[in-house]
């Protein structure tokens, strides 16, 4: 695909639409918009110009301009993505929604909220807590990520076992289509089969089918009681084997997180925290929440007993803010900690049916041994979604790493596929995994996806180079 460069004339036109403060092209300022949380060296790319619009109409004008001039547009939230989705691979216009962060309506009657999508996800809950309301979308990066990014990636997180992922809570949206039209999809409706459900097509489309400018999100009652278990196991297999046992009992925890010893150790050292990981090989972090404190305590205890009966060495209980924050911050900081100690790595996001996750652990061991690399593993075990991370062996050269990384990934993805799984559960395909998608997805499905992309974005200007290549 050939795009035209962003000329001075185009920058002037952007300034005319947005004012001089919202258009910039100096390298130093643009650097921050050239990468996300994937390796900047490997995937980063500079935009030609960055724009920070404040209204939907401004965005529509920019998109129309991009179509007219054949310039690629990359929409961007907070840049905390893990698949390279917000990277302007073809340069062009980087459109950041950071200034679109207004709360438009809190509708107690319908238990819904209408927001601009540049709001930090954590702030949503801070705003409605006093009303006894709760937004259950919970990505692990909740303190930095934007709602818009959560919608683009259909973000999951640590509460998905009970609450599901972002898409469940997106009732309606305002979208600027790739051709620059403004459309409202969905609404404050619990049911709606008036035609195709286009809003759910947008959820998880990684910014390739338009820019979501406003969202109507579903709220639930605020859970007032919460308890966590930190369960220690001799080895990862014992821990993972326990997950389907818990799930099959019908006790619905909010989340079941898995962390192997290396993950816990790395995060603890990064945070200067001391969880008792020395004598164990893996841990499960299990959360139970609800509105009835007694019931939550009872369920927590039942799950704890079940773990003890199924191979756990010890069960710790965290039922207040201090202890809960201690253990959750260890879990939340694993990815960040690994980035510090081993910057050359590949953070994966495989997802398999819950009952088959015990089968993945020996495969990880096999791949790790075959390529002489470490594969620490953590993630949302209760969803069958594991962040196995391929870490470069410090004794290997970069050339060697570049040679074995794709091979090891292919093997991992093949195993995942064999188990009925997919290569990304919540991070997205983006740039990072697009070369592998065609190998693990049915060609009919892939062609349907491409047909949709072509129909929505005839000039192919909306976040090109992500998920799949059209050529």
């Amino acid at each position, binding site marked *: 695909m050939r795009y035209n460069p962003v000329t001075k004339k185009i920058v002037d036109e952007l300034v005319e639409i947005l004012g001089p403060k919202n258009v910039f092209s100096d390298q130093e300022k643009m650097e921050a918009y050239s990468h996300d949380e994937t390796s900047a060296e490997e995937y980063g790319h500079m935009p030609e110009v960055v724009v920070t619009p404040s209204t939907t109409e401004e965005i529509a004008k920019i998109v129309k301009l991009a179509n007219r001039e054949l310039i690629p547009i990359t929409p961007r939230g907070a840049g905390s993505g893990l698949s390279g989705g917000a990277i302007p691979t073809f340069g062009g216009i980087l459109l950041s929604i950071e200034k679109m962060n207004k709360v438009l309506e809190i509708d107690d009657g319908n238990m819904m909220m209408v927001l601009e999508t540049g709001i930090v996800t954590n702030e949503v809950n801070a705003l409605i807590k006093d009303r006894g309301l709760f937004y259950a979308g919970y990505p692990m990066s909740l303190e930095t990520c934007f709602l818009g990014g959560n919608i683009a990636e259909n973000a999951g997180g640590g509460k998905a076992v009970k609450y599901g992922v972002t898409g469940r809570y997106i009732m309606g949206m305002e979208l600027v289509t790739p051709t620059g039209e403004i459309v409202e999809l969905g609404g404050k409706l619990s049911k709606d089969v008036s035609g195709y459900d286009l809003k759910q097509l947008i959820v998880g489309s990684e910014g390739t089918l338009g820019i979501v400018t406003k969202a109507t999100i579903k709220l639930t009652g605020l859970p007032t009681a919460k308890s966590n*278990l*930190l369960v220690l196991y001799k080895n990862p297999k014992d821990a993972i084997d326990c997950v389907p046992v818990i799930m099959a009992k019908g006790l619905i925890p909010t989340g079941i997180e898995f962390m192997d010893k290396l993950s816990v150790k790395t995060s603890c050292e990064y945070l200067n925290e*001391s*969880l*008792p990981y020395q004598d164990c090989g893996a841990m499960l972090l299990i959360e139970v929440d609800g509105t009835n404190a007694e019931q939550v305590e009872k369920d927590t*205890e039942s799950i*704890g*007993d079940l773990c*003890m009966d199924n191979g756990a060495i*010890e*069960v*710790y*209980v*965290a*039922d*207040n*803010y*201090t*202890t809960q*924050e*201690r*253990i959750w911050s260890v879990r939340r900081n694993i990815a960040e900690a690994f980035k510090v100690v081993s910057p050359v790595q590949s953070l994966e996001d495989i997802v398999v049916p819950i009952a088959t996750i015990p089968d993945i652990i020996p495969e990880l061991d096999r791949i790790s041994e075959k390529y002489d690399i470490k594969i620490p593993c953590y993630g949302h075990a209760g969803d069958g979604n594991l962040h196995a991370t391929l870490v470069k062996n410090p004794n290997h050269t970069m050339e060697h790493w570049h040679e074995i990384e794709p091979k090891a990934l292919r093997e991992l993805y093949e195993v995942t596929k064999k188990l009925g799984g997919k290569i990304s559960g919540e991070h997205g395909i983006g740039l990072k995994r697009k070369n592998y998608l065609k190998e693990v997805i049915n060609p009919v499905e892939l062609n349907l996806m491409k047909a949709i992309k072509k129909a929505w974005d005839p000039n192919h200007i909306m976040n090109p180079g992500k998920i799949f290549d059209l050529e």
Partner: protein
Amino acid sequence: MNIIIPIKQVPETSNVKMDKETGTMIRDGVESVINPLDLYAIELGIQLKEIHGGKVTVCTMGPPSAQKALREAIAMGCDDGILITDRKFAGADTWATSYTLSEAIKNMGSFDLVLAGERATDGDTGQVGPGIAAWLNIPLATYVSHVDEVTNTHITVERLVEEGYQILKMPLPTLLTVVKEVSDPRLPTLRGKKKARATEIPVFSTENMNLNEGSLGLKGSPTKVVKIDYPKVTRGGKMVSANGEEGINAAIDELIKFLEEKELI
């Protein structure tokens, strides 16, 4: 080694909101937790018991709901908990609190060591631990960061002071207030939680303690809160624009003048 640990239940402070009218904290809906600095004392107590044997008793003065903090400490590994509660104790300052706690400790039988946190995160005075030592007339070491040696008659500790560490050999019984370097608090186990739930918590009150009523609660407190006020924060920035060489030089001169006036250079 018998160890007594007075603890305090405090509001969990990460989401505290203040009442702008009265200047006091809004306690509604705020979770109560063990004073985070007391956790280091609890952990140290449990570790000493694990090495030297004996018993760890936690106690707290507070409303009946404070027994939750005692049960949490028992779940971590303490043996017993004692709730010191009475309407007459309400509103006590550090003087009245340390008097009441010291009288309660006298009622708990013989002990070798009293361990306390450095201070509570709500009142922030750090006076109750030392106050108890004074009432009990036993030696005191504050800011203890490490325990070196324990014998039948003495304990040797390192104490954090401004210039470094002070090593003290203290005769038992003694009272130590500890800082966070002293230990890494463990998490309570499920077994511990179950044990804690089944543990009976005795209650000490004016009914079963022989107390001087004039030294209790608000009435017995020499500290009087006259007024609560917000400190005024006055921070004003000044923008100096520096366009062109002349402008930059003028801005540098202005900055130097400012720093000289403030005696910063």
